[in-house]
């Protein structure tokens, strides 16, 4: 016979035993699957953000803005192949083909794997007149319309916009007063994208400065100047425009320039005045007020 006490214990054990119902099993499985999925997705998304790589990457001509380019490029390499096999790609000295400007990013490169880019110090863009790399793009990541002259409907290499050359006037020997116009001569848009600014060398009193100055609206960022630069590390180098250029914003308008007024035409009608706490009153009011600075 089992005593009453023992019976109570048994009943209690029976109650404490967890029942794994089909519903509990199903919910646990679902939670487990969802958990694994979310964990994997987070790791993946985190890696993807890193995989975007550096903003310093120079893209082929007519590339979309970097974010749009990254989502639109299918990494097929047709542009790089067109670049390598362009008819103009023969070294005049050796009469052999030159290496391609466009490289396809490998895992170790500081940009998204499989996307085309170029490094001007290795191989600059030679700015082919027929721009062979752009029309072959199947996705539109290289947008032909960006290098098509609207009037003539033909490809126009002067409309390329890969980046912009920047001069480090501290290391550029032309700024020291030494005569060097290597970048000026190398520029495919000679005397348009790089101009020489003449100046008097006060130090010697009898020499001239011939300083290279970039015309920002014209420079395409091909990098031939960077390649040609004679200093140990180029004193003129190409950077993506988003990185190298500032932006004055819509508040600052060249009132004497009709083109610049068009730039902010979309802003007309909007309130362009700065509103601060102080501007709620009239100027005369707060100028006559006593202000205590504590």
């Amino acid at each position, binding site marked *: 016979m089992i005593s009453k006490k023992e019976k109570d214990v048994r009943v209690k054990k029976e109650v404490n035993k967890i029942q794994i119902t089909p519903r509990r099993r199903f919910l646990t499985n679902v939670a487990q699957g969802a958990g694994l999925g979310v964990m994997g997705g987070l790791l993946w*998304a985190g890696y993807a953000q890193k995989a975007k790589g550096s903003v310093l990457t120079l893209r082929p001509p007519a590339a979309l803005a970097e974010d749009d380019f990254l989502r639109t490029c299918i990494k097929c390499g047709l542009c*790089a*192949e067109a670049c390598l096999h362009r008819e103009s790609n023969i070294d005049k000295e050796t009469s052999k083909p030159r290496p391609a400007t466009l490289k396809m990013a490998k895992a170790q490169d500081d940009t998204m794997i499989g996307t085309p880019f170029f490094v001007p110090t290795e191989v600059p863009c030679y700015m082919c007149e027929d721009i062979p790399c752009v029309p072959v793009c*199947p996705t539109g990541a290289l947008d032909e319309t960006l290098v098509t002259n609207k009037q003539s409907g033909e490809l126009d290499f002067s409309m390329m916009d890969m980046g912009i050359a920047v001069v480090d006037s501290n290391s550029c020997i032309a700024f020291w007063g030494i005569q060097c116009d290597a970048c000026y001569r190398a520029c495919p848009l000679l005397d348009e994208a790089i101009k020489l600014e003449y100046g008097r060398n006060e130090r010697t009193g009898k020499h001239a400065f011939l300083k290279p100055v970039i015309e920002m609206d014209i420079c395409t960022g091909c990098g031939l100047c960077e390649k040609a630069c004679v200093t140990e590390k180029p004193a003129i180098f190409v950077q993506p425009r988003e990185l190298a250029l500032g932006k004055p914003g819509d508040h600052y308008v060249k009132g004497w320039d009709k083109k610049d007024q068009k730039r902010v035409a979309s802003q007309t009608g909007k309130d362009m005045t700065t509103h601060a706490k102080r501007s709620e009153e009239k100027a005369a009011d707060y100028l006559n007020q006593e202000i205590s600075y504590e």
Partner: protein
Amino acid sequence: MSNYKYLILRRMTQLSLLLLYFGANAFGWSILSGTISSSSILGTLPLSDPFAVLQMLAAGAALSFDVLLGAVIIALIYGVIGGRAFCSWVCPVNMVTDAANWLRRKLYIDKIERKVWVSRNLRYYMIVIALIVSFITGMAAFEIISPITILNRGVIFGFGAGAGLLIAIFIFDLFVLKNGWCGHICPLGGVHSIIGKYSLFRVKHDSESCTLCMKCKDICPEVQVLHMIGKRSESVLMQECTNCGRCVDVCDDDSLGFTIRNYIKNNQEVTNENVN
């Protein structure tokens, strides 16, 4: 020699496609240029990876007509001949994982190792996750980690550090999980399973002549599709079959062979499938 007929044909297809891609870059051939993500035949006809295009659409890319047409062409080709023919006849990673599998058999790893169970449906979840991550990050998520394109681009433009991923997959398939990458994880394989679900070319089993030697089940990379072996005479209809033809190769009894799926007299097969 007849034991390797389809294997040799497959390797020749895979290698000659790689050669064409390589030659397009190295020598300027135009027969097949580009990469496996998107190619161009004779510089005119576009071919694109439908999964890459899906991811790019999820990422919010405004795509041009060419690449969309290319994806439709590829989907149609594999949708008709398919049954994951891409995986075993075109994809270069197939050679890596097949090598791992071969070494597994030679070293009797299957007989010794501790079994790890991973659902073969993982690849379909990978598709969903890839599309979600593409949507969130604004870039084609699988394309930045895909060993398929890394190997393909590596052959064409030179390998980089990405080769490490291929070695990792080889080791994973060799020591961690049998058919781990191609048979469980690869979302592109999942996409091609779905695309080729109703494709025409199928392996057909004849259970009358089968001697139950099970060589086919030993060699099959998607062994679950051979559920009818020795039981019923029917076609291999599960979408995960890669049409690699290895089961046909190794069968000594002529119990397996490629046939064209008969949709008209298919009712019996469908009911058989439902029974399973």
